[in-house]
């Protein structure tokens, strides 16, 4: 295996795209490679070329979750999402850019079952063990997206700048289709460089977990209020971070028998988040 340390973003993107992979914090990439779920002959260490740090509304994609959770300038929803993610060790290594691109924790996918999301014929969770799985967008694949941070950025309506383009974070994600099973729109040789935040009047992130620390969300609810409008985004409920048009949209959920309980949790958290952003500021 080869490890490249490019000195510019251009050099990095030039080295990406032919089966090579970008490496930042490594908290996701290294386990995926170790488990044989992802194969790459070349790793491109992008830590030297992706911006790191916080400047006003702009966050370098190489900024760690630990740095974000400590910064008082960052909107509550993002800070709380960072603080409730993973463990202190992982947050000190993992970057926000990498966090957005993490794969599902679906046990069938993680164990390398020949499932639909891996390009196979069927979603094993649909007839199988499914209590951690999706309640939305689960027609083909019932996996749940695990990123707390993505839900927060989606509610905050953040903008991403990559080596190619600038776009709303919502456009980073796509429901996988028969022809294309990817859950992001990022090209293989495209790097996330920067995240531009909005300034909500108030925001929050609430998370239900199986234990009190170091667990992926059963349901995570991010809410950001801009004037009289509140945006809700959910983690752990669909193959991608899920933008909820309104609290009432939970009525349209399409749960599996084993995931219906998530709706009840989501309702409670959306209600609490609504209340929290109504009064609070920033």
């Amino acid at each position, binding site marked *: 295996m080869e490890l490249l340390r490019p000195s510019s973003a251009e050099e990095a993107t030039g080295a990406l795209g032919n089966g090579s992979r970008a490496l930042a914090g490594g908290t996701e990439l290294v386990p995926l490679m170790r488990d044989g779920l992802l194969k790459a002959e070349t790793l491109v260490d992008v830590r030297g070329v992706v911006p790191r740090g916080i400047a006003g509304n702009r966050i370098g994609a190489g900024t760690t979750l630990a740095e974000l959770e400590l910064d008082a300038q960052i909107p509550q929803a993002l800070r709380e999402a960072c603080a409730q993610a993973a463990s202190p060790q992982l947050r000190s290594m993992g970057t926000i850019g990498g966090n957005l691109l993490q794969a599902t924790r679906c046990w069938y996918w993680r164990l390398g079952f020949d499932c639909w999301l891996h390009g196979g014929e069927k979603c094993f969770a649909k007839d199988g063990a499914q209590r951690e799985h999706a309640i939305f967008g689960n027609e083909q694949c019932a996996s749940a997206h695990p990123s707390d941070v993505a839900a927060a950025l989606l509610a905050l309506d953040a903008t991403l700048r990559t080596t190619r383009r600038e776009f709303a974070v919502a456009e980073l994600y796509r429901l996988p289709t028969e022809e294309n099973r990817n859950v992001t729109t990022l090209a293989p040789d495209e790097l996330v460089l920067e995240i531009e935040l909005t300034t909500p009047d108030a925001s929050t992130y609430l998370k*239900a977990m199986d234990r009190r620390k170091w667990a992926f969300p059963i349901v995570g609810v991010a809410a950001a209020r801009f004037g009289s409008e509140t945006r809700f985004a959910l983690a752990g409920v669909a193959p991608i971070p899920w933008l909820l048009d309104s609290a009432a949209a939970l009525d349209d959920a399409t749960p599996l028998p084993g995931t219906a309980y998530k709706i*009840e949790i989501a309702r409670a958290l959306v209600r609490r988040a609504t209340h929290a952003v109504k009064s609070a500021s920033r």
Partner: protein
Amino acid sequence: MARLIRTEKEVEGRYEEVWIVVDEDALDQWPAGPLTTVGRRVPRVDGLARARGQAQFTADLQLPGMLHTAVLRSPYARARVTSLDLEPARSAPGVRAAIGPADEDQLTAEPSYVGHAVAAVAADTFSQAQAAVERIVVDWEVLEPLLDPDEAVRQESFVSDVARYERGDFERGLGEADVVVEAEYRTQVVVHNSLETHQAVCHWEDEGITIYISTQYIWGIRAAMAAHLGLPPDKVRVICQAMGGGFGAKNSPGDYTPIAAELAKRTGRPVRCALTRREENVAAGNRNATIQRLTAGATSDGTLVALGGDFVNAVGFSGWSATTEGPMKMLYSCDNVRTTQYPAKLNLPPMAAFRAPGFVEGTFALECLLDELAVKLGVDPLELRRRNYADSDLTDDRPFSSKNLAECYRRAEPHWAKRDEVRARSQGPWKHGIGLASQIWYGGGGPPSYAWIRVGSDGRAQVVTAMQDIGTGTRTAMAQIAAEELGVPLGHVQVSLGDSARGPFASISAGSSTVPSMGPAVRSAAADAKRQIIEIAAQRFHLEERVLDLREGRIVSADGGSWPLTEVTGLLESGQILGKGARGPNPAGMQVLTFGVQVAEVAVDVETGEVRVDKIVAIHDVGRVINALGAESQVEGGIIQGIGHTLSEERIVDPATGSVLTRTLDAYRMPTIADVPEIVTELVDIPDEHLTNLGSKGLGEPPIIPVAAAIANAIRDATGAEIRSLPITREEMFRALREADAREKERRGAAAAV
């Protein structure tokens, strides 16, 4: 004098009749209460070495030329290997040997659960071995697995006989009952997940084998591996100096030890076979799932008149069927009890003993059922337990050697009395409540077990016994016992253990038996040495032996004389005083058990189903306490493991294929420190006057037993919801809350109709 007796031997609630040679135990027990070092709070004698990383675990061992093993494990719950080609593995880089079912009994061509070992490769590095395993070519004929325990009962697929028990007349008792409750409880599979995975390093030398292994039973490994390899037992040397957790799963050689031994034989090199974390979660044993369909009947005054249950143990493909019905048979005084236990054999990974196997599961169900009964009777749950207090073991009419459960209940009162105060903390969606549950279990240990002690001219002592310290603080407890008896400072005693070639036979560290089995032997060895020192001192100082004693490293006489111990031992120069001791018999005709009660305070968020444990008070009766600090840490460990069992841990399998889905520590959720509540430990610390020269029972298992029921009963107290299955997931919490709501509505409707 040695005596030959016929006795019952108990491990983990399993009995066998054995002939046993026992030595008399002539020592009187020490007076009750804390002594000079015994009964005090003593930090671990090896704590610093562990904290510094100096303790030698099997996982630390690096022998020159040592090879590493990877195991091909079946991806199918039931299959037949129709062809197996090891050649591609043998020709892979770094590979020194590859073996299959034809080479080693522990490898199978008919795998019967996911994770069943089929082939193994030894290579210079672990990653080379792993890569080589990938190259093994296997043709599998995949067969339909049996995964459903109720279906196994229908098909009479059992690992052992169905166990039926009845005393009195259950049906008649039910007829006499004014109130009857029935419920079905389910408990899940949980995995030990020891920090140090199952592993062994095998090394053939001089026609014998040395086995370094993470084990709870050095002598059991020696016996099993000698039989497996056809060697005289003394050609098998077993070493375990420090051990990273076992919890019952490391009592036997498993598959990894025979595999390492065979590969070591073939290569002439030391070979390590260490399970990965994933293998640990699949194929290293587990606490099996249970289904318990229970009935309890009582007269209106709260007297239990009938207890009955069908208990299905989903044992897995092999293993043994624990006494899940044990608490129902033993905890309460009830004349009419009928239980049937079905040991379901399934195409799932085998069970292994896990900290009070059977009783953890059985106590959850029984103690929840008892609270349901208390609600229906309108009797206070603590009072209901007192009204049905058992004064003897009703399963065979034996008296208890000691039982201080009533004292435990008495000490629980001030905590239990806070019920209204705790409930009043409820605010918004968070409902607070208190629950309690009792504990009954074994823990008396037994013979044989031996210890030696040597005292040098410097007055320092070395305890030598081939026992193991499985991380429970055994070294410290044994040093305390020896120091107390010898009358020397704790720092003057060292304990040498962990090597079958260096020291006499010692007990298994399972079934809460280490202290009650080994402690008396160590004390008896120390007493033997002390007797000799006093004999020598009497001659040296021209005094009668009966006026002499040892205290704080000095020889003292009744008339006020006092000499440093070294004044006598110094006469030895290079000579030593050797003491030997043996564990005496258990009290004849008596049942030796441990007891306790725990009170849990919980809060439930009824909108999100979150359960938070705020506090657990644990009050246990385990006879004399040796190390008050170590005992407290055992209680805390048991409760934390119990909280995992109750709230978050579950091994999940794919219902169609039997494949284990929770193979990593992010999918299999053990509690973190953030999930740990305030834990208050109280030990009754009354020596069992009938049990050995110490009066001590074991404490490893008791604290985990009542945790789940205490939490579930507190949830009922807080919300009215009746928990029926573990772990208490959000889904289970919502189900129980919905049912409680429906019951409440029905009750109001009925009330309105009247």
